[in-house]
């Protein structure tokens, strides 16, 4: 029997993941710090039409694109004269498991079946678990889902408890774990023990599955309104949603569409802290994932992350928890749509960004998710109050993650906070340079330029600045 201690299992990670991934990662590695990103994404062998066909076969995709007429009217009343873009939302809750994650899971589970695996495993506290479980149920494969759910007192985050319940409803074995990064250790142990397929969120399949979402938005907006979307607003956590949506929009020819990432501001809360864990009213789509995944996309359960949002983001903003709850209520009461937190994070930003754009412009919120017990604002706010977090009507500037949830007094108070992408790009480069300190060759420069979506001469200048002693002392 192999050594099952934490360190011993992690030392076998390469071997375990190779057997479980069905992706030839060494084939895309290049000299230096580079790898061939397009070859990795192309390694699925599926064009966007193939993906759409596989998804349609699994009852996934082709979701309604809804025009939010009353929220558009509200944006126009708040905006200067002539401003107030039309706001659309892609009702991804219509997918089998109630979120866009069904698109990612459809391709991953299809691949697991094609390669002859008996079952699939996913480590996620998000909707992706239910999506994998649902797709596995549809194909008769076994499924295990691992979730970070409880603090050490056994208190479960209501939204994640709900996601665990959903996984069991689809016939999955669910491991509910306490707080800590050892989720990855348990994943490795179970992959080793079961020899199931690793349905990681970060494989090329899991990203290619989202390309149909961007593609559908591009084609449908153009057909209905005779123009490309001006901005597509994407809730950002691990990077797959941004990467896949942006790639799909490009494949539909929407070269000028701005990609705006949005995360809930949870800065100041430590993500691996037992005490802080339940002081978050949002379990994903927040800065605790959004920022680190931009700076270091490869800190995941595969050798190379196919989700690389820094390549695609034109803008990255944050909103507060209270603003998202406010907009969730607005969506229900003004549009008759009761939906979950992930899409409403983007919707809070969309209501603000629409006011910056002319009325003929089109802003698309690219997802909704289902809601219900645990996910609903009343569940989250009740839980927050039980933990001593103050919930009150006040200006969003009084929001303090983990201490005060400020529900805005009026829609005029909603705003977005810009996170400087150039700062994040420089942090990415600082880390990349430190991780592989050998001289940066021309191939590396091309790679890094694509990674941060800036011209090679800019990257070169930034790297030179980072090498200066004053800059070198700045911590990541």
């Amino acid at each position: 029997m192999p050594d099952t201690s934490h360190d011993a299992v992690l030392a076998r990670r390469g071997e375990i993941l190779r057997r479980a991934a069905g992706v030839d990662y060494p084939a895309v590695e290049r000299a230096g710090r580079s790898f061939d990103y397009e070859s990795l994404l192309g390694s699925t062998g599926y064009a966007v039409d193939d993906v759409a066909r596989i998804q349609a076969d699994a009852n996934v995709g082709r979701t309604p694109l809804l025009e939010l007429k009353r929220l558009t009217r509200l944006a126009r009343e708040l905006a200067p004269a002539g401003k107030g873009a039309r706001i659309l939302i892609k009702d991804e809750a219509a997918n089998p498991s109630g979120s866009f994650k069904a698109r990612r899971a459809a391709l991953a589970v299809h691949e697991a079946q094609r390669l002859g695996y008996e079952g699939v495993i996913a480590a996620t506290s998000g909707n992706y678990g239910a999506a994998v479980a649902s797709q596995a149920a549809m194909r008769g494969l076994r499924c295990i889902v691992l979730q970070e759910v409880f603090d050490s007192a056994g208190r479960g985050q209501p939204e994640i408890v709900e996601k665990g319940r959903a996984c069991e409803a689809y016939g999955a074995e669910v491991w509910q774990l306490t707080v800590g990064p050892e989720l990855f250790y348990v994943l490795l142990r179970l992959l080793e023990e079961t020899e199931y397929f690793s349905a990681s969120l970060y494989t090329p399949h899991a990203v290619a599955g989202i390309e149909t979402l961007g593609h559908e938005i591009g084609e449908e907006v153009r057909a209905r309104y005779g123009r490309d979307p001006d901005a597509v607003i994407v809730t950002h956590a691990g990077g797959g949603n941004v990467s896949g949506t942006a790639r799909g929009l490009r494949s539909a020819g929407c070269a000028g569409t701005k990609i705006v990432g949005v995360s809930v501001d949870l800065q100041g809360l430590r993500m691996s802290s037992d005490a802080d864990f339940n002081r978050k009213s949002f379990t994903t789509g927040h800065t605790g994932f959004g920022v680190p995944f931009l700076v270091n996309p490869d800190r995941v359960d595969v050798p190379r992350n196919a989700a690389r949002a820094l390549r695609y983001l034109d803008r990255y903003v944050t909103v507060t928890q209270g603003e998202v709850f406010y907009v969730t209520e607005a969506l229900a009461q003004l549009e008759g749509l009761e939906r979950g937190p992930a899409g409403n994070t983007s919707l809070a930003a969309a209501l603000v960004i629409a006011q910056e754009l002319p009325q003929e412009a089109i802003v698309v919120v690219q997802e909704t998710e289902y809601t219900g017990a645990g996910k609903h604002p009343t569940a989250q706010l009740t839980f927050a109050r039980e933990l001593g977090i103050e919930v009150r009507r006040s200006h969003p500037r009084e929001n303090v993650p983990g201490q005060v949830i400020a529900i805005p007094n009026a829609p005029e108070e909603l705003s977005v906070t810009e996170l400087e992408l150039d700062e994040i790009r420089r942090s990415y480069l600082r880390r990349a340079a430190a991780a592989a300190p050998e001289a940066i060759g021309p191939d590396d420069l091309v790679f890094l330029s694509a990674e941060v979506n800036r011209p090679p001469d800019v990257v070169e200048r930034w790297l030179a600045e980072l090498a200066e002693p004053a800059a070198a002392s700045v911590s990541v």
Partner: protein
Amino acid sequence: MSEAPDRSTGRPGGWAEVLLVVLEPSGRAPGLPPDTAATPYVARVRGFLEEAAAVGDTAAVRTPAGRRVEGTLVRLDPEPGHSFGRPVGELLDVGVELRERLAVEAPRA
């Protein structure tokens, strides 16, 4: 009318939850915040009890994936425990305000 089920002893085939200590504090990952590092890493898994067992016993369940998982039996017929919570007045007010606002200021389309 049936009596309340006996909650202390589970029958074979009954739905139950076992708890496993996956890693003791000394075996956890390096670099954890102190509050997390001080606690064991614990898992809860549910399935069908293989044999009759009482809460607190070591017991095995057969999971929905058909696998055997052994741990300490902690709950029989475990409820998820989450709900919609209590009504939140601050949010109910938001709905009323926004509807009034669009009703009053509505320009006819």
